[in-house]
């Protein structure tokens, strides 16, 4: 009987300790989740600095928290601090190599850092694993275009537009890349495709104006630049159009 009581007492102590440890773990996790939730809400409200503070607190409680590191990277990117953003996305990939969103965001950040070869390597890696990723093809096109490879950019934007025919930016960027290669017919056709999807696209009218100028059709060029000027929200684009219209008229 005595022996039974001792065993029961030891059992109770063991269960109590386990329960306490479990409760501690539960509240620890709750605290981290609360910080994460606040950090994400602050990110969406545009308060990136406070959001970083929340993710820092979450990381101080669990340094291998991939999601906190990833979300903090988004904050750094939003603040234009691309180097720490890239570092956070890299750390995520060290902790969780198959975390594709971190890889994709690292690629976008490399574009922002003008590390275009690195960006292309990353997007190629994503395309190899997910050949129908419309966003990887689009960003691969951006990287190629920005590094002066207009031909390769055309191919990538073409795939993006083929995968998702309603993708206005893919049509427009393909038109821009075609223009750069000197293929005015293709550039014109893609510009028309972009404008068919969005007839308020000022940049596309600007590009159409440039195509018409190259074709020697000053009247249609002037009309396109006038439409671009009317639609442009960006004062720089508006001013450019006004300058060009004045030059055509001169």
């Amino acid at each position, binding site marked *: 009987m005595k022996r039974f009581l001792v065993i029961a007492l030891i059992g109770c102590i063991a269960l109590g300790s386990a329960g306490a440890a*479990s409760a501690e*773990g539960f509240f620890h*996790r*709750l605290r981290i*989740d609360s910080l*994460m*939730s*606040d950090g*994400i809400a602050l*990110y*969406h409200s545009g308060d990136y600095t406070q959001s970083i503070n929340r993710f820092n607190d979450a990381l101080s409680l669990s340094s291998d928290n991939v*999601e*906190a590191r*990833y*979300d903090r990277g*988004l904050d750094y*990117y939003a603040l234009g601090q691309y180097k720490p953003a890239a570092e956070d996305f890299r750390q995520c990939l060290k902790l969780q190599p198959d975390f*594709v*969103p971190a*890889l*994709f*965001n690292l690629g*976008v950040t490399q574009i922002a850092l003008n590390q275009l070869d690195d960006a292309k390597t990353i997007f190629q890696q*994503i395309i190899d694993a*997910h050949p*129908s*990723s*419309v*966003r*990887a093809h689009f*960003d691969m096109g*951006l990287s190629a*275009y*920005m590094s002066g490879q207009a031909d390769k950019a055309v191919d990538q934007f073409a795939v993006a537009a083929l*995968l*998702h025919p*309603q*993708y*206005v*930016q893919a049509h*427009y*960027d393909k038109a*821009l890349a075609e223009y*750069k290669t000197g293929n005015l017919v293709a550039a014109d056709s893609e510009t028309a495709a972009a404008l068919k999807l969005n007839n308020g696209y000022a*940049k596309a009218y*600007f*590009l159409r*104006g*440039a195509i018409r100028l*190259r074709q020697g059709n*000053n009247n249609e*060029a002037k009309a396109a*630049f006038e439409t671009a000027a009317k639609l442009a929200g960006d004062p*720089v*684009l508006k001013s*450019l159009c006004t*300058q*060009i219209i004045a*030059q*055509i008229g001169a």
Partner: protein
Amino acid sequence: MNNDWMARVRLRAARLVIVLAVFAAASATLGHATAPANASPPGALEVAEHALATSPALLADESPYELIDPVGPGGITQKQAEGEVTASTMTGGLYNDNGHFGGGYGQPYFMPAGPEYGGMLR
């Protein structure tokens, strides 16, 4: 005698005024002649092509949904985030693969049930 001297002075003064006037006019004309050559404005095509070649703003990016959304409590799940990357189509920043909609932020996040999470749902 006195009148002769005065007449000569007047004549020389008049010549000086004429010479100065001609010189000033010539300088002004020459100055004007060189100014337009230096400030020759670029042609319309030149301005347009320069803008297309150098202005990053004329290259369209995915501005509103450039990066994949935040993941974790209050954000999207890792699976949804992966879906945003790998989807073959997109609609307004949301991915739409094979008719299945998902992605976008503000999605409810459910922690997986298990000992690590205590099965708690948010």
